[in-house]
């Protein structure tokens, strides 16, 4: 009889489902909408578990539909459930199961508390399905209350496998029922048990095989990033279908496919694909959940669907509670014999209390065949009550309970690099001690597995570039990036206060040699590249401040014209893995930082303002021109204004800064000015203004890039550089979204205009530099200007025709090389300056 378990599927599920879907589309969109609304109301869901909300929603909707139609239109169909809804839920859970701890989950595999008044097949069947603990309901609650990791994993693993086991049992029983209780012989029971084992083990194996295949495939998808997620979905789903085909446990298959491939697939696919997989799975799973819960609500309203029997309901409620508790206590007792850290009484209480029954149980009971199971209506009623009770009552009370019992909570803390290192050392020590003491315990086996994994599996299933990477190194980089972000988070002040005040630094930074910069950067540890040389070479505070301002403005004012490539090209997709989630935070903080900076400068330079007022008007119009890439420059105008010699110095930096943001995706054409920029120190003629200002960076331009660039790029983790660059460029793109019609042009045109100044004979730097300077001097203007440009920015592109494409330049190669560092320098110079005695960081004002 067990062999028939696969026959449960609807005869022609495809067609049926299609019809069903068409039928449902309209109300369904409404449901989804409501679901989203509820989803967004965070405040509400922190108090009430989401499942409750969904059920209530279902009740309301069910009521509406009932009133309108007088009968239920929609009901759950086995084909739909087994082919679509269940896989999504289980697949989601399986894929996101913390891999390292799946062993614990496996230990709990046998947890099926058969709370059954034995005797009738139907009751067996019912017992099987009602004992399905709903992972989603449990997890949602546990995640909210932050129980400690161990408990979380145990309950997670348990409910996950429980689900699978329940479905298997359910199918076995249902085949019994189909045969009819009278015809079931004793031998059939044993057959049932045997087939249960075969079904689950077979399913697991199928899942693992598919996991290997999937991991192997993703190893070769580097060129086709876009279809990576598709592979993941298809193969996981294929694992499900294949197992189903052989009448094995499809759910176990899928679960283990998810668990097994997770590590390798995550390493192989790009960041974007990872995100896609993650969100799609979550979305699908929650949609499936929602559908089931809403069905539950709907059918609870419809009287024709169920029949009430107080005895059965109350008995079931009591029994599930008692048996759950008994099951938990018994199994933890056995487990504790083998565990290093025994599960405490409190954990057991929470575990038994956390046995929420949810969507799966309900779906299974609704799918019962009313012809064969006469008591179906009673079962439905009971299940509804049980689900209501557990989800509503227990779901609402488990949070206070956890608090009251003082269950150890998980600390939401990121490990430091020290912890990472030492914990790894501990692992090695323990494995060694186990070897010495002649025990083959957990560490022993884990070591064995890791060896095997490293030597064979990873080599087979991972890309070469990936498996060579060390975990510790990755952890290190992650920590670095986190630090960088927190640095920005605090307005860059941490740079001055914490980092620069390291005692060891003084000695190191005083050496001009390149190696010392290296050392410093290394010691600084965090990938935030401080260019100390900039500070060192600055003789005085005033000069220094000017530099700072200059760099700041250079970065800020030219923002709108810094564009990066259109994200829609194929090319971009292949590069896409530089993207980080940190980006968003980064952007925001960066913006804030810039803003606050601006305001401080505004105050500081108030006095200067009056002197410069005369020139302000001039500059304003001029800036406007410059800041809007699409403006077709009226040459005469430009000429007149640009001819002021004063601004020479800035050119180089301006360009460099902009260029750097683009470095990750370089394009040959766009860089006409780069070479000039880098060479600007030598090219730029000493103009009167330059002497007058004695601008420090001018000297620095020549000397710095070579030394900084080489070293800095080496030391700073590439990742970080990219993250940094990217966040900056995205910051810019935020301020001024790329122009749709001609994605490549804006930046190019900007460069173009600058690089080909109205008067060719005049050395390009002088003409370009102009705007920087005035801007920092009279802050009032600067504020207004930048505002203006920001306002204008979106408008401009559409108003003006795109400029002609720029002439290709041969210079780019050398320019590119240096850019990142110079760019970094310009970025970073501002904060460090605060440490100098006279400089004014944002904090001081």
């Amino acid at each position: 009889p067990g062999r028939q378990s696969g026959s449960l599927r609807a005869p022609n599920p495809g067609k049926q489902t299609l019809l069903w879907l068409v039928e449902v589309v309209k109300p369904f969109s409404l449901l989804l909408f409501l679901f989203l609304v509820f989803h967004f109301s965070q405040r509400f869901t922190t108090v009430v578990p989401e499942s409750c909300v969904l059920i209530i929603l279902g009740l309301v909707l069910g009521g509406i539909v009932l009133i309108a139609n007088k009968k239920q239109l929609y009901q759950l169909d086995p084909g739909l459930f087994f082919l679509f809804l269940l896989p999504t839920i289980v697949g989601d859970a399986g894929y996101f199961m913390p891999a390292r701890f799946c062993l614990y989950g496996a230990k709990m595999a046998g947890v099926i508390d058969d709370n059954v008044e034995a005797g009738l097949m139907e009751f067996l069947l019912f017992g099987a399905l009602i004992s399905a603990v709903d992972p989603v309901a449990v997890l949602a609650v546990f995640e909210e209350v932050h129980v400690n990791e161990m408990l979380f994993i145990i309950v997670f693993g348990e409910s996950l496998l429980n689900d699978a086991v329940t479905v298997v049992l359910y199918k076995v029983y249902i085949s019994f029922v189909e045969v009819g209780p009278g015809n079931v012989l004793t031998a059939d029971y044993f057959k049932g048990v045997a087939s249960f084992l075969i079904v689950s083990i077979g399913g697991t194996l199928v899942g693992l095989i598919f996991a290997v295949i999937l991991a192997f495939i993703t190893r070769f998808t580097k060129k086709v990033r876009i279809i990576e997620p598709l592979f993941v979905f298809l193969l996981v789903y294929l694992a499900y279908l294949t197992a189903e085909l052989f009448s094995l446990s499809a759910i176990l298959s899928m679960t283990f496919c998810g668990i097994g491939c997770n590590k390798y697939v995550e390493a192989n696919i790009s960041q974007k694909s990872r995100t896609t997989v993650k969100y799609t799975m979550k979305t699908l799973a929650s949609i499936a959940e929602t559908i089931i819960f809403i069905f539950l609500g709907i059918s609870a309203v419809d009287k024709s669907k169920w029949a009430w029997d107080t005895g059965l309901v109350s008995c079931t409620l009591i029994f599930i509670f008692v048996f759950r508790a008994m099951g938990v206590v018994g199994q933890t007792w056995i487990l504790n014999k083998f565990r290093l850290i025994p599960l405490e009484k409190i954990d057991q209480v929470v575990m038994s209390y956390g046995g929420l029954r949810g969507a799966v149980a309900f779906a299974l009971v609704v799918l019962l065949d009313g012809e064969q199971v006469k008591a179906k209506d009673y079962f439905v009623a009971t299940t509804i009550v049980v689900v209501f009770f557990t989800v509503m009552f227990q779901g609402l009370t488990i949070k206070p309970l956890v608090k009251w019992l003082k269950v150890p909570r998980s600390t939401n803390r990121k490990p430091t690099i020290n912890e990472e290192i030492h914990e790894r050392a501990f692992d090695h020590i323990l494995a060694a001690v186990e070897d010495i003491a002649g025990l083959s315990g957990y560490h022993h086996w884990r070591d064995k597995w890791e060896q095997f994994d490293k030597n064979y599996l990873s080599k087979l299933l991972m890309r070469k570039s990936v498996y060579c990477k060390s975990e510790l190194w990755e952890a290190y980089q992650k920590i670095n990036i986190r630090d960088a972000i927190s640095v920005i988070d605090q307005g860059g002040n941490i740079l001055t206060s914490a980092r620069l005040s390291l005692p060891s630094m003084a000695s190191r930074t005083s050496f001009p040699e390149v190696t010392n910069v290296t050392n410093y950067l290394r010691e600084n540890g965090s990938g935030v590249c401080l260019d100390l040389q900039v500070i060192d070479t600055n003789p005085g505070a005033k000069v220094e401040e000017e530099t700072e301002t200059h760099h700041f403005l250079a970065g800020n004012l030219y923002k709108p014209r810094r564009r990066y490539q259109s994200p829609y090209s194929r090319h971009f997709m292949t590069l896409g893995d530089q993207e980080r989630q940190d980006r968003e935070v980064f952007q925001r903080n960066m913006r804030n930082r810039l803003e606050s900076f601006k305001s401080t400068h505004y105050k500081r330079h108030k006095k200067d303002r009056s002197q410069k007022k005369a020139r302000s008007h001039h500059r304003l119009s001029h800036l406007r021109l410059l800041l809007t890439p699409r403006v077709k420059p009226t040459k005469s105008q430009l000429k007149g204004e640009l001819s002021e010699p004063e601004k020479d110095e800035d050119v180089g930096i301006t360009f460099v800064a902009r260029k750097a943001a683009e470095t990750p995706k370089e394009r040959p054409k766009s860089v006409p000015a780069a070479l000039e920029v880098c060479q600007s120190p030598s090219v730029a003629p000493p103009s009167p203004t330059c002497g007058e200002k004695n601008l420090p960076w001018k000297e620095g331009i020549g000397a710095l890039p070579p030394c900084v660039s080489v070293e800095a790029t080496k030391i700073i983790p590439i990742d970080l550089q990219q993250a940094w660059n990217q966040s900056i460029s995205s910051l810019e793109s935020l301020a001024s979204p790329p122009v749709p019609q001609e994605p490549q042009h804006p930046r190019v045109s900007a460069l173009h205009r600058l690089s080909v100044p109205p008067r060719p004979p005049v050395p390009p730097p002088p003409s370009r530099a102009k705007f920087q300077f005035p801007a920092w001097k009279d802050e009032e203007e600067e504020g207004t200007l930048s505002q203006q440009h920001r306002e204008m920015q979106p408008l401009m592109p559409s108003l003006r025709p795109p400029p002609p494409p720029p002439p290709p330049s041969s210079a780019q190669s050398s320019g590119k090389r240096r850019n990142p560092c110079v760019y970094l320098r310009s970025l970073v110079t501002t904060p460090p300056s605060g440490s100098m005695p006279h400089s004014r960081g944002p904090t001081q004002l």
Partner: protein
Amino acid sequence: MGSTSSTLSKIPNADELIQETGFTSAHLARLFERFEALDKDKKGYLSPQDFEAIKELALNPICDRIIGAFFSSGQEMLDFSSFVRILAHFRPIDNNRTKEPNSPDPINSRINKLKFAFQLYDQDKDGKISRNELLQVLRAMLEKQVTEEQLESIADRTIQEADLDRDDAISFEEFRKSLEKVNIDHKMSIRFLR
């Protein structure tokens, strides 16, 4: 049980060891069997060579450190009681054991576990993990997965993070502080079979 008691009778000062280390007599008997199995020449003590002969241990990236920890006193012999005492570091902390006032700091206490780990790093026994010492351990653990430069930056970072008194080395106190939030009992305990 009979075998246990017969083994126990062979151990010189069994009662004392049980008292000191907290192992049960069954543990002790089992460990004694293991000790004798390792001691191939029946010389009554273990030498570093005996440890090196353990196949699985040879695969451990930091095995020489660990073997070194067993022979920390400098001599080349390890008798059974020292063997047990060192292994006792890794016994899980038992909180339901009656706390006797005269044994303030059991061998498997948190601080002793940490000390054991610390001495693995601190090869020259000056009470500090220097940059070099850290680098050596890191190199062993990471093998060829990272470049020397990356290794150094990790080491620098680690020291910078833990180093509170700015001497470019990690003292035991700093080591302890940096691991304050880690559940040492979980991470540094193994289950000894009966």
